[in-house]
């Protein structure tokens, strides 16, 4: 499977990654090679095989509905790029 530059840009956009125009050809070739590798999977017929999303054959444990956390805003916001009045600030969100 080979990707073209537009596809790579589309994927980069979906993943919110800015890729310099000059680097696009490199990604095109690397990603295409990786997909070629990945497509070796097609050599094996998997009809009827159940997907395995987890190595453990276990089930979800349930947590008691208890409040165990306390306010640590100051601590957490000390490492934030931009805050004011306890809010995290980001460039204007337009709806």
């Amino acid at each position, binding site marked *: 499977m080979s*990707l073209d530059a537009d596809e*790579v840009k589309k*994927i*980069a*956009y*979906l*993943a*919110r*990654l*800015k*890729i310099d125009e000059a*680097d696009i050809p490199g*990604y095109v070739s*690397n*990603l295409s*090679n*990786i*997909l070629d*590798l*990945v*497509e*070796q*999977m*097609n*050599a*094996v017929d*998997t009809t009827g*095989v*159940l*997907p*395995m*999303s*987890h*190595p*453990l054959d*276990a089930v*979800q*444990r349930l*947590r008691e509905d208890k409040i165990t956390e306390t306010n*640590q805003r100051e*601590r*957490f916001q*000390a*490492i*934030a*790029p*931009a805050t004011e009045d306890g809010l*995290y600030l*980001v*460039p*204007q*969100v*337009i709806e």
Partner: protein
Amino acid sequence: MSSRYHEKTIAELSAMLHAGEVSSVELTQYFLDRIKSRDGELNSFITVTEEQALAAAKAADERIKNGEAGPLTGVPIAHKDIFCTDGVRTSCGSKMLDNFISPYDATVVTKMKQAGVVMLGKTNMDEFAMGSSNETSFYGAVKNPWNTQTVPGGSSGGSAAAVAARLAPAATGTDTGGSIRQPASMCGITGIKPTYGRISRFGMIAFASSLDQAGPMAQSAEDCAMLLNAMAGFDERDSTCLDNEVPDYTAELEKPLAGLRIGLPKEYFGEGLSPAVEQVIRDALDEYKKLGAELIDIELPNSGLSVPVYYVVAPAECSANLSRFDGVRYGYRCADPVDLMDMYTRSRGEGFGAEVKRRIMVGTYALSSGYYDAYYLKSQQLRHKISDDFKEAFEKVDVIMGPTAPDVAFKIGEKSDDPIAMYLSDIYTIAVNLAGLPGMSVPAGFVNGLPVGLQITGNYFKESQLLNVAHQYQKNTNWHRAIPEDFA
């Protein structure tokens, strides 16, 4: 010379600490000095926490004095910089987290603290654990102490190099596709990746959640057993951490190996394996035969697909796991974003390195509409088949052995432009993660002065058996005691 502490295993240092032959402060200072004087050549540490280390050492000495010490109390080790450490930078080898002072401790870190273990610092690693050579770190490549022209393996390359050079008696690592075993092999140390779910992942920065597992990297199987005793166990904050009993991993170390059935997958001894490495492995297997083990040929027919499967599963999971690095709440934010989209794309574009971006993009693609079935679903189905191969094999054998990596450490820069060649260096380790099984790498000899690791894979939760099998070998060989000449 009694002050050559770096030649000692943890088991030996523990005995010395308890006998009062050395204090934790002395030991800690000794290793801090060693890091200071020698790590310039290796770049194995990102952060050295001298002050905290000495304070912890003092507290440990107090515990020893008061008879409140456990076997690891006062022993200094290093943590891979993937584990969150309260008040200490936790970078994960990335520019993205270069400014991230974690506000909490990972469960593994907490457990080590409770055991009285002293943290010397945080070790270098491939960025977000994505790499097999430690060349993708934002903090620069780590060098292999056996030959500083070569890589230490990855992603836990800093931990492996630090232990190999005896800058730390042991270190923690994480293993998603071989990241403990492969660098352990390339640096000539002993490392174990336990069964998935054995050690809490809470506070361990996620790469691929269904594959990631922490483990110890040390000089010997015995040391690994001691460390695993402290690391393993249930954590209510990790839904995938199992609540079954943790045995004393040192208890079975001395069991004789007579009658042990060792499976040799024919797929691990075929094309792509360096003949010299194969010879080292064959010699190790002969040693096992002498110890009474039986060698049985087996097949893992789907293991050849483990690399392709892995390069769907791991990127898919990582593409979502790394989405939280968005420049909003912590970590890197680009300068002067013009709008929200600019903030996202530049913060992430500038904060992540090329390999991380590649994997995020592969994962994004594999999950995107129209491709999910062909890539993600297919990989999950094959994961089942790969896992079933192991199940079948373990009906016939107790452990599976083979080389950890197809070759010894390669030259720095040799594969960094060729992701595929790099990925194939994990060809023998990845299937174990896909199945969630425990695996080890044990030093078994040298090729051209570079270490070769023997990989031992066990059935689910058979860590005790793996450690026993490795320990018996180490009682009869000395490979694990070898120290690189320059760091002797």
